[in-house]
């Protein structure tokens, strides 16, 4: 963009705020993804893929033979006694509760209540 014109302009604050908020949300999604998928897969599966290629070389390299993570059904517990299997409780229910907390933090703290402007049609109607 022409530097002369650029000096007369500033970055749209809605664009800037929205981008910042989007980055935070996507980071939270990545954390949830890494935690929930790895926790549930490693702690809640009776049988794991025998072929390392099935999970990708990186996973096989990091964790070794996945059969060592095969879950023994008799080791099942119910945290808090509410009947939810332990791997679902710690892998899904608990992070779900944390995500609800995160959403409230996002809404009440991070989110900027920007003025969104009006559409050309609304402006015309207002002028009339």
């Amino acid at each position, binding site marked *: *963009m*022409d530097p002369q*014109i650029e000096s*007369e*302009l*500033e*970055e*749209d*604050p*809605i*664009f800037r705020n*929205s*981008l910042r*908020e*989007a980055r935070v*949300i996507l980071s*939270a*999604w990545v954390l*949830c*993804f890494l935690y*929930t998928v790895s926790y*549930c*897969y490693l702690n*809640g*599966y*009776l*049988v*794991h*893929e025998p072929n390392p*290629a*099935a999970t*990708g070389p990186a*996973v096989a390299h990091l964790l070794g033979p996945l059969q060592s993570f095969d879950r023994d*059904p008799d080791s099942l517990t*119910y945290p808090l006694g*509410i*009947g*939810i299997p332990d*791997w*679902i409780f710690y*892998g*899904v*229910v608990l*992070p*779900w509760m944390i*995500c*609800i907390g995160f*959403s*409230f933090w*996002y*809404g009440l703290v991070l989110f900027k*209540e*920007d*003025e*969104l*402007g*009006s*559409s050309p*049609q*609304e402006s015309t109607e207002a002028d009339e």
Partner: protein
Amino acid sequence: MTQTSPVTIATFIVYIIGVFILAGFSHRLLKKSSFMGEYFLGSRGLGSWALAFTFAATSASGGSFTGYPSLIYSYGWVLAFWIASYMIVPVCTMGVMGKRLNQVARKTGAITIPDVFRDRFESTSLGLWTTCAIIFFTTCNLVAQFKAGALIIEETFNLPDAWGYIGGLLIFAVTVVFYTAYGGFRAVVWTDVMQGIIMGVGVAILVPVVVIHAGGLREVNEKIRAQPPTLVTSQKGSFNDLAIEAVGDHQPAGVRYFHPGTTQEEVTIEWNTDPEASTREFVDIYLAAEDADSSTTSSANDVKAALESNASLQEVIEVKFAFDNEKFTSTPGKTISLGAPGAISLEPGAKPKTYVFVRGDEAIFGPGRKADGTPFHPFGMCLSFFVMWAIVGMGQPGTMVRLMAFKESRTLKRAILTVTVYFGMIYLPLVFIFVAARTLLPHIPQEDADKSMVLVATRVVADLGVGYQILAAIFIAAPFAAVMSTVDSFLLMISSSLVRDVYQRTINPDVKEKLVKLASYTTTVLVGALVTVVAMKPPDFLQYIIVFTSAGFAATFLFPMMLGLYWKGMTRQGAIASSMGGFLIMLACFVPNMLGGSRVDSFGVRPLVFALLSSLVLGIVVSKLSGPPPGHLVRKYFYKEKATKRS
């Protein structure tokens, strides 16, 4: 026949009348403001509750209340992992693009998603392309949604098997097409609010009723674990399924149905009875056939008799009728056994039908096992589905258009918080309900599992007493509401694409409002009629079709939109490459599967991940090669005049 009580039916009809009344009120508003903006976008005036519930109800499609419960019923607790991404779906799908998309749409007065693309990149071809993509995927999805609606009506109104599905389909189609066409976007949103509340209330009441009735979740889990290894055959046709339990120490791997390949008058059984055998053998069942070139003719009753008369199997398996073969009479709680007289038809030369025994533990832990023995949720699916719900959810035009309709930023914030709580109240509790339902309604074949939500309402809840029959109606209305709220928004999306994007903006920009009105009503009705005709031959397993179309939408729309909103360097060419690339790669991965081969997967990752990555890469690379974008577009969408300059 299944008997739903008159009280339940009456309550359900009152609900439908309520929907029509809302459409009537909405229609009156159409006369007071600009038709196009009001009919397709509610004049950009949605408040927090309306935005929250229309968003939630549209996301919670027929799949959420038919496909999802059927999968929970079939595979158990692993579905909580399968749906886990919903923990962060509301903030992702509404927060990442909501405010910015709303602002960009306001700048140009865009009413539809293709409008946004057309204006943001000043490209008619991009506008038309995205219109075509919307019509293609939406039509596929609508067929599945119409099937779900028809099944609910069929079960609720006790329609006869001979024409029940078609009758249910017609009732559903007339209802939803009428109120959508007559009331437009505002009617859709208002009914979404009503339906969203019904869904929430339905689930909130259903959880304690079903779980307590089943003895509590812990008791449910122990009952499931104690169940003997079981298989339920899932054959095409009526009354031809059997539930077989492995009760002996020496357990077979499963059963296989074979065409005999020759003339055979009776069912014959082959099984390796050696308990010392190193591998568990299948019980092979050779069905009767008139000759080598004709289909098999044995009924499931014949198979049951043959298995029970086989001496070597008497201490090994126990054969029962599947759920569908024992239906309630008009007196709740009293059953008559219809047996399994339906024919098991295998074509000559067909592969054997294989069913494996599934242990109770496999419904408590992952990965879940399908009837044919393959894992339900392997590692690649774990990755794909976490991406699927949150990331793919952002790329749905049906949700994007709602983000263009809210009034102010504060509205969006409140709606995000509302939907966050609402989804937490819906998706996890559904797992509790349908895991418990496994112990209350055992042996539903996979072919009928799509009905499990309605079955829980009509067979479990209503049987608890007369007072519960009104609740049953609410439970039935919940999936019906979910289906309707998705269908109405999709119908409107197609008609807006055709009327606004194709006709008004491309063919005849000076069209008179009277003609726009007529075209909008007519298009909505015609699309509804077309989908109804296609849905008369319904596809199986709703959830898979919905997954395909949702993934297709995301591959086509997500990155072109996201990059267009947040990257100054995005060009028109980049947007077209990103959108078309995602669409074509998605199709290319599915075409081999459609032609009867295997789907293109790598590491078990579903095609959508490749399509999304390709769309992202193409958008960036092509924009870099074709850039920079026109300066006036960058200024218009990413900058504003400095405050000092304005003063």
